[in-house]
């Protein structure tokens, strides 16, 4: 099955190492520049004492109004750094944005001043983080923290901010909101703290919500509650959502489209159903095969051999080639393009079609 078919060259644009990635979804109905949020060929590196880590190497993705995009990847794949670049909260230094664009409603955020970006942050794009306990300030009551945004940014009076904070806490279904306004973060359970953070993110009615591993620290029953809440809010408020996660189960439940990241690149981009049914990148395929399933008692798990690359020494050619079961000579030398597979799917693999059609699962 890993034999390369003799016909493989015919359908593939093999060869050229041009870095500027093809726009991921030419099949998308929205005209060029018409996306709500668009990341174009972003390159970010971290300059440290030990060397330069190339964390983001040409990431492009887009988000339309009202949809949910999942960005899936393991630790170090660059999924959170991309989000931080969108929010403008990267620590620079050590991070340096080498090139690329982040366009929100047609404007490139990266060329804007800090003051202009502040106007976008929170009111247009808001973010929630994985660890609510460390994201919240332990020395102030939660009501004050939710209200702070409203007082600072919406110019509300303390009384108005307080009333709105209660509304927001009710919106995220915190029971007995009016009485819990004065409680401190440590007095809330993990799930409730995550709700408080969601309430803060929603305070200024953002159009885009970036959720960075929102349920990773939570138990399954609470995870289910929070994911339900997020998808209900997204639908009711008409937001678009970027869900950053490593959990293939969570993604399957809520996402419309998925971008899979590996070593700072998007290796596969597809709608959620096609991706699970016919993964077209060996990494995606390996991930799907290596998770234990609740719905059957498996035998030995198949694994992806080896380790993710050190970002200071990303392998030449395809960064996944040392771990790839489909590897050929070409993979060692040539960085694969985003190969367009139709239906808006792309895969950065020289053998994307073979992988997709290989139904070994």
């Amino acid at each position, binding site marked *: 099955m890993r034999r390369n078919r003799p016909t493989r060259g015919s359908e593939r644009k093999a060869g050229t190492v041009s870095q500027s990635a093809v726009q991921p979804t030419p099949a998308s109905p929205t005209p060029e520049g018409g996306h709500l949020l668009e990341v174009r060929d972003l390159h970010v590196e971290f300059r440290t004492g030990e060397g330069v880590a190339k964390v983001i190497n040409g990431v492009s993705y887009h988000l339309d109004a009202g949809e949910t995009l999942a960005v899936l990847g393991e630790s170090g794949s660059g999924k959170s750094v991309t989000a931080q670049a969108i929010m403008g909260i990267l620590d620079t230094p050590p991070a340096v944005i080498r090139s690329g664009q982040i366009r929100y409603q047609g404007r490139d955020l990266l060329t804007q001043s800090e003051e202009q970006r502040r106007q976008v942050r929170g009111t247009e794009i808001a973010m929630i983080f994985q660890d609510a306990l460390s994201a919240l300030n332990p020395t102030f009551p939660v009501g004050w923290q939710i209200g702070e945004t409203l007082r600072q940014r919406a110019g509300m009076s303390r009384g108005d901010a307080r009333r709105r904070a209660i509304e927001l806490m009710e919106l995220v279904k915190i029971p007995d909101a009016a009485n819990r306004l004065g409680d401190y973060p440590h007095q809330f*359970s993990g799930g409730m703290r995550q709700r408080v953070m969601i309430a803060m993110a929603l305070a200024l009615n953002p159009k885009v919500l970036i959720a960075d591993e929102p349920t990773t620290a939570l138990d*399954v029953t609470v995870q*289910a509650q929070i994911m339900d809440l997020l998808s209900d809010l997204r639908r009711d408020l008409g937001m678009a959502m970027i869900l950053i996660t490593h959990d293939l189960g969570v993604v399957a439940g809520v996402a419309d489209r998925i971008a899979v990241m590996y070593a700072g690149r998007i290796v596969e981009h597809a709608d959620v159903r096609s991706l699970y049914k016919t993964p077209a990148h060996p990494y995606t395929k390996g991930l799907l095969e*290596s998770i*234990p399933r609740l719905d059957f008692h498996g035998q030995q798990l198949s694994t992806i051999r080896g380790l*993710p690359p050190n970002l200071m020494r990303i392998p030449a050619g395809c960064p996944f080639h040392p771990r790839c079961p489909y590897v050929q000579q070409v993979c060692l030398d040539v960085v694969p393009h985003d190969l367009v597979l139709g239906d808006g799917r792309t895969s950065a693999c020289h053998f994307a079609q073979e992988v997709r059609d290989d139904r070994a699962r």
Partner: protein
Amino acid sequence: MTAPASPPKKVRGEPILAVENLVKHFPISRGVVFQRQIGAVRAVDGVSFDLRRGETLGIVGESGCGKSTLARLLMRLEMPTSGAATLEGRDLFAARGGELRRLRRNMQMVLQDPYTSLNPRMTVGDIIGEPFEIHPEAAPKGSRQQRVQELLDMVGLSPEHINRYPHQFSGGQRQRIGIARALALRPEVIVCDEPVSALDVSIQAQVINLLEQLQDELGLSYIFIAHDLSVVRHICDRVAVMYLGRIVELGTEEEIYQRATHPYTQALLSAVPVPDPEQRDNQNMIRLIGDVPSPANPPSGCRFRTRCWKAQDVCATQDPDAVPRAADPHPSACHFAELREPTSPS
């Protein structure tokens, strides 16, 4: 290669570890000069089970249910408030001195976080060889280095890495070092406390396969504590579900995953996201409301009743025992134990 054994693999063998009504309460005290106890966190509150030779017993539950305290009790890192446990017939909590040391040789632990469970100032050789310092009879002095190299090889690391430090390894490799350390004294029982939950998906599968392979080669018995129900189903022969310090349901992998009768188990299973978008709409999920109550002040009667959709008056007054129920003959601590229709997707 692990043999793809017949589905219910090795549910045979005599009990190697027997736990009887184990209780651990942590006192809550108040006052600086005059300390007085004002309550207790009932972390483990009456837990009984057997571990059979060669099997993997999974212990699942949400955070705060007492599964890690149970592990620490079994390792005798804590002494119980009451209750008993025997390892190969010998009382785990009465042993002292030399006898305790011999008992501990037979029972080792793999910890959750591979980043904090290895001393950063010790080489891998020293870390894996440290058990031999405490138990010199396990390996004569001259053969220790060779034994450490064998162990490294056994867990899939290169024996040449013996002089490296933990920071030179990735998370998955560090977890392998932790496993090698646990294997050093050739124990028969290994308590794994969330051994893969800190690892990435692609690495997690490698470590799970390693644990299964070692079990087949060395005939180990595992107590496998985890919150990830998919992983537990994959690796375990029998599963105990814990809630607020109690085992609410105990059965074979099939009994728990196909024929669960306790509402909490059913809810827990239905909350696990299935990695298949086709099942997005037809999962009949049970959504639990609220959070786990505080173990310092558990509800009267059945502890799950505050979140249970089946709760009746009797649940508030009568604490259900984990006994076989009419719906399915495995222990389930629910007055209204019944199978769920339809059962889990498969």
